[in-house]
């Protein structure tokens, strides 16, 4: 198969390596070094998609990041990715791509009916039409828009690829490897600065690859290759291609996405697909160049109409002709460069120049080559539906208002050049106050807010000589400020053709009697008429016009459309462009894959899962796990066909009758040391701590300054000035920060150190009437009698050679102990407990049984200490010291906190002793009262009491103190339940607390 539009011996592609690919199911081939776009054009394929709103045929408009049309669905190595620009996607062997936005096919698209209905789809169409009636939104409009609109289709499969994040620091970050980027990087690097040079494309050099210039007796391309090769060898320089700096954030942090594997058939082993770089640069040099802007004319979205610079790039880089019969439509000298390239390859283009009589070296060269040039001429409209077939052209009057006789010229492509728009996105994102430059009719960077400078074409400088000089100077100056070195590089001798001024002409008037669509925004189908309607309807601010018409809101962010949109608004509004102002540039400059943004923060919680040292034992013993923050904890250990309810009931019962063991490693642990440790605890906790003896533990509650309970736990005095604090699993990190806050800022005079030891200790709670017998077996040399180790006592023991801490504390309400050993020995401890516990019928129990045990005991936990309750609400007021001040105490005498009918914790039992009560249900007096039924309280936690064998719940109830014995209703509209209940004491089991002391 021959490639009818591929030139021989032209371009930078590797003709020794053929690559086969498929587009819309059809097989083609290209070469290594092609993009999908260049390979398709080489094969004569110009129809690649359908437009967003009218589903008009779409071809290629650009050759890179500015492409508004050629967006495809890519298939690679069994994965699919939407919204890939064909102009940026490098070809690889086996690549498959499909058109988007068309159904059933790109050639026959039913949505194109919108094209004929376009009178009904003017600006604001969606806002006007789909607002009413309201009930239609979910059922009719939204599904319709979803089907008709949108670009590609996101995969719903798990992405197998790996994406990484990297943090980097440098002296100079240089964005773009065109002439200004290379020159400044070279000057700065030679002066010892640490430089990162980022190039979006695969090839370095930017416009040097396509322009006919000479630098230091080398072609632009050779000069660029030499500089890049030298930079790559320098240890202080990082040179990255396929890397787009897309965001400029505060404090000179920029983010760059590096496409490491997207150009390969599959990602190499141990390589990421993409890497996101967070770069903190001392100085940023923006050398992002400029983007050619189109001239607006009738049917200017027809496939085959494209930027003249793109046509030149396809020719010079890829050896591809965008047409054999080209028409060049230009208002400046750039169009001539494209025309000359065509001519050199045996093609005779026609040039239409809006200028009357331009004089420059380039124009002269074109004349000398015998090119057909028509001055003061414009393209009125492109003709052809799926591809340009001809163009209606006409002479235009000097005032650019009147068209002459229209003539139809055969052509197969129209290459447009409406001059250049500096790429100021990064500068604008950095906070730079941009300014309008009359000479180039575009915005350029103005006053910097951060440490950035813009060079070359991005700064509106379009001559190579000036660009290289200023870039070398700037590279030197900035590096000199940072390194204090004085190594200068010399200015190379530059030969370039001089060009003359452009014509500030951007939109061809409509001929009489014709109503051609003249598009501004090619991706969102925004035409001149849409902007006119928006302004007629009263929209004034450019930000509003943008949102109403969707101008510049597509994935290309209006790279080719914004300025022409501004020109139009300023013309209609009779304002100058700078007074209209441009819309805000926001990151990302170009779409970034979600995978790159997410990086390694994938999977559950987007965080690594934390597991206790005994985790593998739990797994082997059929634990069903539950998330506790980022930890995994056994919820219950499944036996046979047991469900959660049956399993947890069995485990809880066994604790009440024999002995159970629970992994409590996840509890927060804080080591507290120092002569003032007791004083700190006394201020942090609500109860008294100064007299706690060594070898004793105490339960404590800590408040926030607003009086709300922050956390609870036991703290043990290990030695004179050494305490071991425990916190709830969820609050562990907050409590540590809280202590550090007071120690460092509020009471720096206290001599105390705190440090987290959560991960240093493995913990096992041994609970049940037989726990002491088991403990004696575990620590045969310790006195664990009720006298030797009383309730809230602490001792250290020897667990078969392993040092252990033994706390006699209880969450279950049974006689219980907690044993801690160093994490490394956690599994040893656990297996010993299970082994020696066999004769006492030990069973491990999970968090569900743990909850059951604490709920029926009336012990509060996270569901009661939920950031809304004070100590009284949890019946913890007995722990409030009257003798001392503590954090949050002053807040407790607030009126609502001391109200007579203040909410309080109670127990709730269903009258039928059968119906389980859903957590979160409301308590009401009258189940049939009219809505809104006054809520008296809510169910905080529910369980099946193993002691009483009926459902039992805890609730926070208004005036709870007086409600014991009352009959109320539990209402759960969510579960559609109404349950008559009786309010009882929250201490449903062992209200006197005898067991823990037995």
């Amino acid at each position, binding site marked *: 198969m021959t490639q009818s539009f591929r030139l021989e011996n032209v371009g930078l592609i590797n003709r020794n390596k053929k690559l086969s690919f498929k587009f819309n199911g059809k097989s083609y081939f290209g070469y290594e070094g092609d993009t999908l776009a260049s390979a398709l054009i080489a094969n004569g394929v110009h129809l690649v998609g359908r437009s967003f709103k009218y589903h008009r045929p779409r071809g290629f408009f650009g050759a890179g990041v500015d492409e508004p049309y050629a967006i495809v669905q890519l298939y690679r190595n069994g994965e699919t990715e939407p919204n890939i620009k064909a102009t940026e996607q490098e070809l690889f062997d086996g690549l498959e791509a499909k058109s988007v936005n068309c159904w059933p096919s790109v050639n026959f698209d039913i949505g194109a009916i919108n094209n004929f209905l376009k009178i009904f789809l003017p600006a604001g169409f969606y806002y006007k039409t789909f607002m009413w009636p309201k009930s239609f939104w979910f059922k009719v409009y939204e599904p319709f828009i979803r089907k008709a609109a949108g670009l590609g289709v996101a995969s719903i499969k798990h992405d197998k690829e790996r994406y990484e994040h990297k*943090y980097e620091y440098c002296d100079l970050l240089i964005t773009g490897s065109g002439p200004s980027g290379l020159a400044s990087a070279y000057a700065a690097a030679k002066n010892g600065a640490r430089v990162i040079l980022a190039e979006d494309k695969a090839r370095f050099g930017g416009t040097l690859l396509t322009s006919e210039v000479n630098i230091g007796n080398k072609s632009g391309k050779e000069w660029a290759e030499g500089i890049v090769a030298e930079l790559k060898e320098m240890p202080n320089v990082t040179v990255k291609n396929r890397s787009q700096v897309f965001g400029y*954030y*505060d*404090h*000179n*942090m920029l983010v760059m996405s590096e496409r490491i594997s997207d150009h390969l058939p599959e990602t190499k082993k141990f390589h990421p697909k993409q890497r996101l770089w*967070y770069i*903190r640069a001392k100085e940023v040099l923006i050398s992002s160049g400029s983007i050619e802007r189109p001239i607006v004319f009738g049917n200017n979205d027809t496939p085959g109409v494209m930027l003249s610079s793109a046509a030149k790039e396809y020719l010079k880089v890829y050896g591809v002709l965008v047409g054999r019969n080209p028409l060049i439509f230009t208002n400046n000298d750039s169009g001539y460069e494209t025309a000359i390239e065509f001519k050199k390859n045996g093609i005779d283009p026609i040039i239409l120049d809006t200028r009357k009589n331009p004089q420059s070296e380039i124009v002269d060269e074109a004349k000398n080559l015998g090119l057909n040039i028509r001055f003061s001429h414009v393209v009125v409209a492109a003709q052809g539906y799926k591809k340009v077939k001809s163009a209606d052209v006409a002479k235009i009057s000097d005032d650019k208002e009147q068209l002459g006789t229209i003539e139809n010229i055969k052509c197969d492509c129209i290459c447009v050049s409406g001059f250049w728009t500096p790429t100021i996105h990064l500068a604008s994102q950095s*906070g730079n106050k941009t300014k309008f430059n009359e000479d180039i009719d575009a915005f350029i960077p103005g006053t910097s*807010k951060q440490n950035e400078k813009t060079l070359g074409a991005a700064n509106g400088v379009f001559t190579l000589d000036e660009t290289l000089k200023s870039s070398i100077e700037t590279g030197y100056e900035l590096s000199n400020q940072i390194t204090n070195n004085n190594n200068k590089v010399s200015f190379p001798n530059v030969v370039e053709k001089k060009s003359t001024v452009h014509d500030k002409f951007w939109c061809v008037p409509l001929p009489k009697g014709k109503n051609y669509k003249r598009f501004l925004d090619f991706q969102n189908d925004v035409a001149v008429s849409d902007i006119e309607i928006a302004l007629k309807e009263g929209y004034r601010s450019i930000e509003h016009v943008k949102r109403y018409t969707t101008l510049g809101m597509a994935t290309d962010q209006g790279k080719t459309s914004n300025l022409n949109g501004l020109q139009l608004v300023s013309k209609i509004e009779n304002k100058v462009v700078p007074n209209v102002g441009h819309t805000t540039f926001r990151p990302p400059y170009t779409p970034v894959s979600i995978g790159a943004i997410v990086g390694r923060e994938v999977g559950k919680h987007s965080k690594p899962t934390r597991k206790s040292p005994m985790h593998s034992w739990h797994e082997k013993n059929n634990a069903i796990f539950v998330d506790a923050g980022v930890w995994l904890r056994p919820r219950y250990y499944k036996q046979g066909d047991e469900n959660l309810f049956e399993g947890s009931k069995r485990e809880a019962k066994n604790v009440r009758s024999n002995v159970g063991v629970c992994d409590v490693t996840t509890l927060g642990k804080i080591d507290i040391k120092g002569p003032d440790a007791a004083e700190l605890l006394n*201020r942090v906790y609500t109860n008294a701590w100064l007299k706690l003896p060594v070898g004793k533990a105490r339960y404590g509650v800590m408040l926030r*300054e*607003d009086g709300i309970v922050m956390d609870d736990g036991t703290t043990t005095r290990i030695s004179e000035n050494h305490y071991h604090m425990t916190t709830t699993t969820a609050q562990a990190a907050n409590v540590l*920060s809280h202590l*550090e*806050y007071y120690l*460092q*800022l*509020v009471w*720096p005079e206290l001599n105390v150190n705190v440090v987290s030891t959560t991960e240093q200790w493995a913990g096992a709670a041994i609970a049940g009437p037989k726990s002491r017998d088991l403990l004696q077996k575990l620590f045969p040399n310790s006195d664990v009698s009720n006298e030797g180790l009383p309730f809230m006592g602490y001792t250290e023991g020897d667990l078969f050679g392993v040092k252990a801490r033994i706390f006699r504390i209880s969450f279950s309400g049974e006689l219980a102990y907690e044993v801690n050993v160093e994490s490394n020995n956690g599994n040893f401890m656990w297996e010993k407990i299970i082994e020696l516990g066999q004769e006492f019928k030990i069973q491990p129990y999970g968090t569900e049984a743990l909850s059951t045990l604490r709920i029926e005991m009336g012990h509060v936990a996270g569901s009661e200490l939920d950031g809304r309750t004070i100590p009284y609400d949890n019946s913890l007021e007995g722990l409030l010291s009257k003798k*001392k*001040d*503590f954090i949050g105490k*002053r*807040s407790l005498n607030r009126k609502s906190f001391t109200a007579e009918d203040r909410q309080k914790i109670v127990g709730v039992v269903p009258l039928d002793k059968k119906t389980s009560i859903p957590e979160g249900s409301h308590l009401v007096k009258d189940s049939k009262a009219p809505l809104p039924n006054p809520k008296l309280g809510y169910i905080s936690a529910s369980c099946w009491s193993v002691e009483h064998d009926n459902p039992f719940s805890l609730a926070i109830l208004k005036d709870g103190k007086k409600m014991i014995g009352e009959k109320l209703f539990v209402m759960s509209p969510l579960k559609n339940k109404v349950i008559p209940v009786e309010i009882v004491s929250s201490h449903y089991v062992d209200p006197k607390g005898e067991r823990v002391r037995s």
Partner: protein
Amino acid sequence: MLFIKCPHCGWRSQNEFSYGGDATVKRPELGKQVSDQEWDDFVYNRKSLRGKHWELWQHLSGCRQWIKVERDTATHEIFNTLKANEEIS
């Protein structure tokens, strides 16, 4: 992402820190009688101003020290950072 100079560790990215609010708020001394108004001012009332602002940050994933940072809340410019025990001048 801000770039904050920890007085103990040097320049670090914002994601190592956590925000801690107004650094000029002084907790009333323990045991001291304070009016409702004074207490509310300490617990709740904040200026939330636009412009230069002394605020607390904790170098959570670093030295764990609380530090004082003078930042412009509108522009994010950071003018000064101090250790916990250094007085705001």
